[in-house]
C-alpha cells in the first residue's frame, strides 16, 4: 500500500512517462544537430527517475515502519476547512469565466461580494461592510489601473462595461 509520497511519485511518474511518449512525435529539423525533443527528453527522464525513486523510498519507509510496529494511527491534526477551500477555488473559477462576459467592474464587484459572504463568519451582521468593500474594490481598482496607470482591464461582452 502506498502512502502520500508514493502516490505523488506515481502521479509524477505517469505524467512524465506520458509526456516522454509525446516527444516521440516531435520533428527533427535537418538544419540543427539537436532537435526540439532533446532537452525535454532529458528533463522528463530525470523527472521519471526521481518519481520512481520517491515511490520506492515510500514503499521501503512504510515496510520499515510496519516491521518496527509503528503502524499507530497519527495524532489528529488541526481541523481544516476543505469545503471553504473548494468554494474559494470554485468562486475564483467562476470569476475568471465571467470576467470577459460581464467586464471587470461588474464581475469584480460580484466576486468580492460573494466571496466575502462565503468567508465571513457573520455575513448577515456585516452586510454593509461587505457591500462597501465590494463596491470600493471594483471602483478603486478600475480607477487606479485604467485611469491612472493606463492598464487596460477586461471589457464585458454582455454588458459593454
Amino acid at each position, binding site marked *: 500500500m502506498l502512502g502520500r509520497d508514493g502516490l505523488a511519485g506515481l502521479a509524477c511518474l505517469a505524467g512524465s512517462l506520458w509526456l516522454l511518449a509525446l516527444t516521440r512525435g516531435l520533428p527533427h529539423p535537418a538544419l540543427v544537430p539537436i532537435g526540439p525533443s532533446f532537452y525535454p527528453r532529458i528533463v522528463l527522464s530525470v523527472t521519471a527517475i526521481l518519481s520512481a525513486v520517491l515511490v520506492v523510498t515510500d514503499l521501503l519507509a512504510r515496510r520499515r515502519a510496519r516491521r518496527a510496529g509503528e503502524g499507530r494511527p497519527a495524532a489528529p491534526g488541526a481541523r481544516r*476547512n476543505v469545503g471553504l477551500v473548494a468554494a474559494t477555488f470554485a468562486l475564483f473559477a467562476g470569476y475568471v469565466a465571467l470576467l470577459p462576459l460581464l467586464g471587470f467592474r461588474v464581475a469584480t464587484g460580484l466576486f468580492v461580494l460573494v466571496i466575502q459572504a462565503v468567508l465571513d463568519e457573520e455575513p448577515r451582521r456585516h452586510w454593509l461592510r461587505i457591500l462597501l468593500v465590494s463596491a470600493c474594490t471594483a471602483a478603486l481598482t478600475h480607477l487606479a489601473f485604467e485611469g491612472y496607470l493606463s492598464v487596460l482591464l477586461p471589457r464585458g461582452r454582455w454588458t459593454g462595461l
Partner: protein
Amino acid sequence: MFELLGASLLDVLQWKYLLPLALGTLAGIVGGALPGVTITMTIILVLPFTFGLDPLQGLAAMTGVYVGGECGGLITACLIGIPGTPSAIATMFDGFPMAQKGEPGRAVWLGVWASVAGGLLGAVFLIATTGPLAAFALEFGPWEYFSLFILALSMVAGLTEASLLKGLLAGAIGMVITVIGADPIMAIPRLTMGSEFLRGGFPFLPILIGIFAFAQIVADVEKMSAGRATPTPLPPPTLAVSHLAVIREIVSRPFLLLWSTIIGLLIGVLPAIGGSAANIMAYDQAKKFSRHPERFGTGIPEGIIASESSNNSNVAGSLVTIMAFGIPGDAVTAVMLGAMIIHGIQPGPLFISQEPRIAYGIFAAYLLAHPLAVVTIALGTRLFLKIVTVPKSALIAVVLVLCTVGAYALNNIMDNVWVLFIFGLFGYALVKLGFPLAPLILGVILGDQIEVNLVRAIMTDANPWLFLTRPISGALIALSVASVVLAVWQHHRTRSRLAQAPEPDLDF
C-alpha cells in the same frame, strides 16, 4: 562607481522616484506587518501598479516593498507576538517577551535600528561586489551558465526543509513546465497536444502569482475553520524610547551585528532560500556565541539584533545574485526579475554595464528605503496595528482581485488568469503533498535558460566532457554534486541521531 552612485542618489531623491519608493516602503511595511501576507505576496500585489511606470520607478517601488517588508514583520512580532513575515519569527523570540516586560518601544526600535544597520552594511557589500561579480560572470560561456544554473537548482533542492528527493523532483517539475510550448531554437510547438492555449507556453509571472500568492491565500482559507475571527490586538502602550540609547545598544555589540549581517548576506546570495532561514540561523549563531545562551528567549536585545540585522542584509545578498548573475535570490527577487523583463531589461552580467542608470538606481533606492522605513514606522506603528484587525474575508477578496489584475495586465489576455488559477490549484496540491515550492519556481525561472545554454554549448562543440573539463564549469558541477552529497549526508545524520536518541522519559 561613487560618481554614478551619487548621481543615482540625487536621481532617486526626485519626487518622480521618491514617491513610488516611499509608497512601496509603506506597502512593504503594511504587508510585512499583516500576519499571513508575506513580502512575496505584497510585491506580487504591487507588481501591476508598476506596469504603467518608468522601469526605475517600478523597481524603486519594489525595492521599497522588499526593505519595508523586512522591517514591517518585526512590528507585529514584537507587539502582539505574531510575526508578520517568516523572516521575523526569530525576532519574536525576544521581541515579544521584551514588550511584555513593559519595553515595547525598546523592542520595536531595537529591531528597526538593527534592520537599518544590517541593511546599510549589506548595501556596502551590494555596491562593492555586484560589479566585480558581474565582470567575473562575463567570462562565462554556455557551459559555465548551464553548470551555474544546475548548481543553483541543486543547492535550493538540497537546502529545503522537506526531503532532498522532493526538492529535486520539485525542481525537475518546474523545468518540465518550461518545455511545454514552442522550443527556443526552432519555435516548434512541443507537448502542446494541439492546444492553442499551450502553444505559447506558460508565462512565469502568472505561475509565480498562482503558486506563491493564490496557493498561500487558499492555505489561509483552509485554516478559517472554527473560530474564524482574527484576534484583535490590544492597543499598544507608548513606543517612546531614547533612540540614541537604542542605537548605542546595537553598536556596542559590533561582532554580533557584523556576524549576523554576514549570515544574512551569504544566505541572500544563495538562490531561493530567503530571510526566513537567515533570521533563524543568525539567532541560532548569536545564541551559540553568547556567554549566556540561557537568557535567549527571555527578552534580551541580542536576539532582536541578530534576527533583524540578518534579514535586512539578506535583501542585499539577494539583489547581488539577481543583478550579477540574473538568478533570483528568493521569490521576491523572482518577481523583480519578471518586472525587469516586462520593462525590456535583461538582468545578468551585462545588466550593470548596459543599464548603469537602473542598476545604480536600485542601489540608491535600497539605501534610501532604510531611512524611509524608519520615518514610516515612527509615524504609523499604531495605524499598522489597526490594519491587522482588517477582516480576513475582505483581505482575501482584495488580494485575489489584485492577483487577477497582475496576471491579466501582463499581456492583456485572459489566458494568463487561467494560468494563475491552474497554478494556484497545482501549488496548493503540492503544498498538501509536502513538496517545497522554492525549487519548483527556480526550475520554472531557470528552465529556459538551462535549455538555451545546453543547446548552445552542444552546438558550439559537441564534446559533452567540456562541461567537466572547463575549469569554472567543472568546479560548478563539482559544487552541485557536493551540495547534493552534503544534503544526503546531513539527512542521514539527522535520521541516525533520531534513531539513536534514547526514548525520552515521559512523566505522566
